[in-house]
């Protein structure tokens, strides 16, 4: 089953073609990485997938359903969770509340029930809270649940952002540079964590990442963007040996030296 299928997606800003006719397919249960030099259009590509931008051309299918042009909230409802390159938590809310916001679409309380806090509303809130706490325990942040998100150390903020995306119960998880700013040990933990997500929750993961070691170890397949275009796609082994990738990503001088 194809979790994600992108057909010829293109996005222009004025004269600049940020994403140029990119097609790719991610299979269900895969961990798929998108790499490329800074400014190659990776984040814009994510923003197309999540509906922040509508593509100028091309189509996007999620588990066979055409979601081209869906606004971000509808894409989220279809089961796409995401994190951001520069962490975007709700800083003035507690850790637990951040997760409850993530569960927004799964808390089924009609407005008038919320207004008067009816038994139904109380029940649903309690259930959501328990679920959020379970999730926090799962990612190891339960002891932080009443702290303000902005007061968490950087590494835990990254973790919380992933947890918030998981609260959406996504079928597809998009991670934008999850290892940025992490030291090697934290990166290794992150790798184990992502692999656990797939194994235990069956979530398909697409990530943008700069840390090549992480990418090479974790990915089933990799797509390489340069100048908004896809220049290669394949297993880590294939991508590593692709001369175009070596040239684009590692610099010309690197071609000879790469292992």
């Amino acid at each position, binding site marked *: 089953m194809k979790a994600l299928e992108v057909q010829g997606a293109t996005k222009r*800003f004025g004269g600049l073609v940020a994403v140029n006719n990119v097609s790719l397919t991610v299979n269900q249960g895969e961990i798929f990485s998108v790499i490329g030099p800074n400014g190659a259009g990776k*984040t814009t590509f994510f923003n197309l997938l999540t509906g*922040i931008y509508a593509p100028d051309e091309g189509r996007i299918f999620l588990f066979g359903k055409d979601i081209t042009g869906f606004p971000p909230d509808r894409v989220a409802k279809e089961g796409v969770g995401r994190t951001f390159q520069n962490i975007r938590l709700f800083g003035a809310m507690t850790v637990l509340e951040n997760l409850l916001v993530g569960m927004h679409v799964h808390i089924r309380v009609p407005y008038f029930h919320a207004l008067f806090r009816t038994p139904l509303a109380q029940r649903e809130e309690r259930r959501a809270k328990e679920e959020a706490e379970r999730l926090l325990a799962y990612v190891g942040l339960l002891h932080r649940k009443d702290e303000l998100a902005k007061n968490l150390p950087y590494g835990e903020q990254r973790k919380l952002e992933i947890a918030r995306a998981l609260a959406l119960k996504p079928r597809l998880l998009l991670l934008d540079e999850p290892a940025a700013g992490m030291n090697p040990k934290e990166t290794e933990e992150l790798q184990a964590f992502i692999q656990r997500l797939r194994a235990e929750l069956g979530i398909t993961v697409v990530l943008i990442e700069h840390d090549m070691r992480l990418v090479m170890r974790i990915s089933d397949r990799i797509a390489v963007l340069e100048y908004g275009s896809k220049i290669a796609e394949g297993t880590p082994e294939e991508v590593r040996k692709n001369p175009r990738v070596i040239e684009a990503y590692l610099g010309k001088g690197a071609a000879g030296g790469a292992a």
Partner: protein
Amino acid sequence: MLEQILSILPQVIFDGLVLGFVYAMVALGYTMVYGVLELINFAHSEIFMIGAVVGVEVFRYLAPQVPNGFLLLLIALLLGGAIAGATAILVERFAYRPLRKRGTTNRLVPLITAIGVSFILQDLVRLIEGLWHNEFFLRMRTVEDLEGSFDLFGGAIFVQTKSLVLILVSMAMLVGLTYLVNRTKLGVAIRAVAQDLQTASLMGIDPDRIISRTFLIGGSLGGVAGVLFALQYTTVNPYVGFLPGVKAFTAAVLGGIGNIPGAMLGGLVLGQLENFFGTYLPILTNGNFGTEYKDVVAFLILILILLLRPQGLLGQVVKEKV
């Protein structure tokens, strides 16, 4: 009815032009500050009002001393522009700058401050006028030189001298501003700060200074517009800035906020539309809906533009950073 409409059309267009130039000048102040700080400077309405009040006072006190009406107006324009500009600088220095230094990211904070400043200025002027004359509803003194009139196109348009002066002065100011912004070092610096404040500081530009200058320029233009407004429409009070202010903002949005030629164009277009509706609405509805609905028209235009073309007539779509 059509005949009636057509017969007064030239006059309606001319009067709309007069109003449009006032809006254009005030709109520039909004658009320049918005361009630099992304702040709707509500207090700009009051800067305009201060210009109008200064105009009235200069005419009140100097008319007997200065025999020449044009010279009198020149003094009023200079003083009105200077006092309004100085007020604008003070407002920036003591109300907006502290917020900027604190680095508040909440966008409501400067906006609420601006509303507060606007209220303070209204009542301060009222207080001053109350102490001075025990009266704050002011009337512009008429001066003979400026009250003359003549007909154009065989009587199709009735032109008052002061309207003509208003148009000429506004045009001169607008040309001057365009030159300043496009051709001088200060102008380039203002545009640089507006586009990217941080990078501008990497060029050795002191953003505070440029922001201050921007308020000075916008404020002086607003003050000059106020003097001309007082001359043209004769009644002035501390609350007279509110409606023209909101409309001038509408004009700025209409032209594309932050865009200087846009503000001029927007002001002229809005002046035409408002005068058009104000004159013809009673005729078209047989007097059921009077001139008073012209303000409603202005607001509806504002909403329509914001919905249909939020970047305005001359504005560009800017990529949002995610």
